[in-house]
């Protein structure tokens, strides 16, 4: 059956400490939470937890980007957004306090790139703004406002003026954004 209280071996713990930005306490806490999620899986002990289960975590439940986060950090071959424990640790590491700005901006770029093509074009930006403001009709910006907003964003961030924001432009604009580090943070 599933390992309900399986302890994390010490060498694995220190390896995780070295490969992520998490402290020992945080890794153990993550292990505990992940084991609880695994236990609710019906039947076999599977090393991956499905996306639905991950999305029941309180930290992700109310996040408009929860599905994108799961997709980005998932290493599953089936592209279903399921996370293994190491994926989960990667997630927490990227969102931790001590992660570097470069890591955070890299993953933020991937999360915001809704169509996974390596650039943020107008459609990605529109989806991004709609996720931020809400999904229903009365919580969205009007078409005119959206166009104005997207043109402002592109004007600020698109350096080579090709109509899309690529990773280095995104990282450049993030490095000048004072709020990013404090808001791009998930602590269990």
């Amino acid at each position, binding site marked *: 059956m599933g390992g309900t209280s399986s302890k994390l071996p010490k060498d694995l713990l220190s390896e995780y400490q070295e490969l992520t930005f998490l402290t*020992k306490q945080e890794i153990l806490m993550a292990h505990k939470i992940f084991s609880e999620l695994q236990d609710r899986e019906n039947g076999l002990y599977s090393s991956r937890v499905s996306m639905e289960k991950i999305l029941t975590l309180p930290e992700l439940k109310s*996040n408009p980007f929860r599905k994108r986060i799961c997709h980005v950090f998932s290493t599953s071959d089936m592209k279903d957004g399921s996370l293994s424990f190491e994926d989960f640790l990667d997630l927490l590491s990227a969102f931790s306090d001590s992660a570097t700005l470069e890591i955070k901006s890299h993953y933020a770029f991937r999360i915001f790139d809704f169509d996974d093509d390596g650039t943020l074009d107008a459609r990605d930006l529109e989806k991004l703004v709609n996720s931020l403001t809400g999904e229903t009709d009365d919580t969205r910006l009007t078409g005119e406002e959206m166009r104005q907003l997207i043109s402002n964003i592109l004007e600020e961030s698109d350096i080579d003026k090709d109509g899309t924001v690529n990773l*280095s432009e995104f990282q450049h604009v993030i490095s000048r954004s004072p709020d990013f580090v404090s808001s791009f943070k998930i602590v269990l």
Partner: protein
Amino acid sequence: MDAPDAVFFPDRRAPASHLLLEQLPSYQSLLYRRKSSSSGSARRQGSGRGRQPSINSGKWAEQKPVHGGEELKPVRELPKSMQEKRWEKQQRLQQGGTLTGWGLWRLNVHRSLKRLKEDGMDALSSLQLWRAEIHLIEGMFGTGILSYFSFLRFLVLLNFIMFLLMFVFVMLPVIITSHSEHNVTYSSSNVSVCSEYLGSSRQGLVMFHEHITDLLSGTGFLEHTYLFYGYYKLEFIHSHFTYNLPLAYLLATVSYLLLSLVWIVKRSAAGFKRKLIQDEDRFQSFCNKVFAGWDFCITNENAARLKRSSLLYELKMDLEEERIKHKMANRTRSERCRIYALRAALNLFVMAVLVACFYCIYVATVFSQRKQAEDQKSNFLLELVVEYLPSIVITLANFITPLIFNLIIAFEDYSPAFEIRFTLMRCVFMRLASIGVMLFSLWDQITSCGSSGCPCGYNHELYPCWETHVGQEMYKLVIFDFLIIAAVTIFVEFPRKIIVNNCDCGLAKWWGQQEFAIPQNVLEIVYGQTICWIGTFYCPLLPAINTVKYVLVFYLKKVSLVTNCRPSTRPFRASSSNFFFLVVLLIGLALASVPVIVSIAEIRSSRACGPFVSYSTSWKVVPRVISQLPIGLNSFLLALASEAFAVSFFVITCLGMFYVIALAGAHKRVIEQLRDQLVMEGRDKRFLIQKLCQAQQAVNAHSPERRPPRGFRGNRYDAGLYLVEPSVELETQA
């Protein structure tokens, strides 16, 4: 995907260009798509940074990691999955396997030291005050309100350190001497009439309510205690060395002001650097709002919904503001004149209101001082009201003036963001200047002696120990401030919640649920901190009282927030708010140091009490001590204080500043040029690709039996004919 395509060929005529683009080195280095695991993690080193890697690493990716310009980043800083990081680490270990015993040992030591340091930092951060509470608030309300509470925590620490400073250098020696047998010299002076000090300790049977009055106003049994300046009558303590108490007192005062300054500047330095970077005309850029807009730490569904609506509101406001700015730029001249005239008139009105408030404070202080001097035994409550009259008037003025300012700003026709900032600045000025006015009127009273002039430099009949008296006034201000905060929270916010939740009348609907207004709350605590800074010189235990006060305020506000408030619809961004808080605190510090410096350097210290009895002003301790130092040190310090040194120091500082400004200007120009160059390069690239595709199409048209290039990797050789070789090799590695 069509994204690069669509930019160049809207009708998607030539898919070939897409293939070309995908082979460009710059595009390769930006790609992060995970191919099958067999390719490993060798393809990209350092996302988006080096342009060379695709040439360097392409050939030797399987054998060695990056050479040349890039340094090895720690493995955890690579944006890859855990498996890939593990692979990378093993690669590096194999590399590092060539290290000798010495190098290996050094590496191990380095690694274990790093781990020790991290564990230490971890332990330290778990000791952080109120960590759990603040985490809870962050989850429920987001980072805006969080910044207020972490600011409050910072002030608690600052006050505690100030208290430790005063305690160790001023109080501890006095406490030790009163319990041990050290030889002490009491401070004394010659003039007899000025050094009579009976104090107001009550004789005989003392009523209970008089104890309350004493507790609340620092008179009576509290007056001759460690609480006030007047108690520290020692001058020298002789043990193994001579401890100069007046010097220690003065230096402790100066050092707590300097310590506060340094700590605040250090804390705001990060925010300041970012504000300088945000030099574009927008106060908050759209990119910041959209890319960094969502607080990923929100765990509450309600809070998430509110955050969404506040983001929507904020974006709409910013877009609106941009439209207004366009409109304002298109104003005609007559309109502009009208608006400027209106603004001038309204500013005059604001100044008149301020002057009226200041006059009221002055009159109230004078009245209160006169009534206290008359010392009539009247009703207990009336006595308290008279004592607290200046505080009451200040609080009333600070309550009414923001309402007036809010009303006026609507007519001045500024952009919305500027309106908020300007009103806030006016409120800040009002709050902090009211303390200054009160102090000024106090000083006026203390130095007004009637027709015969002041033989002692101050009114020795009414105020034999004027520093203690000023300390008492500051003490009263602090106590009253805390009482008002507690009273408003308990008697206004809780009933409001009960009424709004249970009653369905029009009043409840109009009043609405309490919002946690961050600016007003911040002004409250900055006001309290300014009083503390001024008052610590006269009342050395004031930082301790302030620490306790802020701890209680923290819990009060937290409970009130969680039970009564909903998040404000007008969002206050965390970054700018941190900077704003610290700027206001700095203004408060600057305003607080003025009275302290004036009273140390200019005002005659009282002859009847305190450590500075034998000096004409408090500052005179320093010259006297310096004159007793050895000759070399003496002349060195005198040279430091001379005009020649000051002028040359000023000139050198100015030169340094001009140099740095010129350097910044030069950098800015270079950045502009590079930016233009980038745009040009992008255009060149697109132009060349267009030409390439046209040429290819021409070639294909001439020889139709050739296989047209499709999306197969193997067929890149055709398209690759025109491209630089290494990127082709890169593809063959895949």
